[in-house]
């Protein structure tokens, strides 16, 4: 009897731990993605830079993006940001992409994914319906840094994202990490 109980315990224990990667994104997807990056690349994110957080004002404020003036994309107060600075992102990006896609597949729609072997850069943009708005999750990873941004977009800015997914995705990341004080 004791043997059976031990076997069941081991089976439950093994199941819980081996199933862990598959349930990454069931709860808070933003935090799950951050945790997934940390586990896969063995890195640690740093806290949201205070000034970047403070810089999130109103949607219509002109912001400096790409060296010029551009409209704010994210809805005020909707930005979640995690930054990984100056750490080594060594790993099989195809494997990472597979894990990410299967974790987010149920609730998020993958819009665009780009990889540059030259710059060791990966960009992932996912969308999720949020009533009359849209949640956008942008993940960028390069050789030394990574950023995870989740924002809420208005209909108008969704149109911009659809028209130019790559450019608008980059602009969302730049906006989230933008320091209005600069």
């Amino acid at each position, binding site marked *: 009897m004791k043997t059976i109980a031990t076997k069941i315990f081991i089976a439950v224990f093994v199941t819980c731990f081996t199933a862990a990667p598959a349930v990454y994104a069931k709860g808070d997807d933003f935090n799950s993605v951050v945790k997934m990056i940390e586990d896969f690349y063995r890195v640690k994110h740093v806290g949201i830079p205070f000034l970047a957080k403070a810089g999130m004002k109103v949607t219509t404020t002109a912001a400096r993006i790409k060296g010029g003036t551009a409209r704010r994309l994210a809805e005020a107060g909707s930005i979640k940001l995690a930054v990984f600075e100056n750490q080594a992102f060594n790993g099989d990006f195809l494997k990472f992409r597979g894990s990410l896609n299967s974790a987010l597949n149920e609730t998020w*729609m993958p819009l665009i994914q780009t990889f540059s*072997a030259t710059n060791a850069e990966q960009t992932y943009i996912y969308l999720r319906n949020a009533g009359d708005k849209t949640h956008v999750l942008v993940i960028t990873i390069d050789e030394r840094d990574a950023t995870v941004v989740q924002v809420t977009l208005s209909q*108008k800015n969704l149109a911009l994202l659809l*028209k130019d997914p790559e450019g608008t995705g980059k602009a969302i990341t730049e906006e989230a990490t933008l320091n209005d004080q600069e």
Partner: protein
Amino acid sequence: MKSLFKTTFIASLLVAASALAANAQDSRIQMGSLDHLAAKASQTVDVNIDERLMKLAVRLLSDKDEDEREVKKLVAGLKGIYVKSFEFEADGQYVVTDLEPIRAQLRGAGWTKMVNITSKKEGNVEVYLQFAGENVNGLAVLVTDDKELTVVNIVGPVDLDKLAQLEGQMGIPELGIEKTKKKNDEQ
């Protein structure tokens, strides 16, 4: 027991038949066979705008705003836009057999290669349309160059004019596709 087996068998047959029928009319090209090329490519772009997103866009975009109206008009009726594009630093990073699974799909189920198409872009550009009767059900573009491989698949009612409008937008690369009427008339 025998009856249960028979019922299960018939049900399986029906499911298989309906799946085959659905596939026959589906203009979505499965491009997963190309994924391994990402490991060799210097640049990879993978765009997936599926029917859910298309519907979402049509529902959310307003007719009042010029930007939104333009996008809405383009995506109305479309069921998906899928792009896979690979750029390589050296020649010979992909071989003809890598494309075979894509070509095999384009050989069946109503796909027709357009012969009157040229492109300003370097390399070989092939355009395929899938017809359901007289209506166009989907479009596929293959761009093959020594250092580039791009597959564009638009699902839903689309024509070359719409493709031209979509070039450079929604993740679709600039394809420079032109219809050469004169050539077509000669044939």
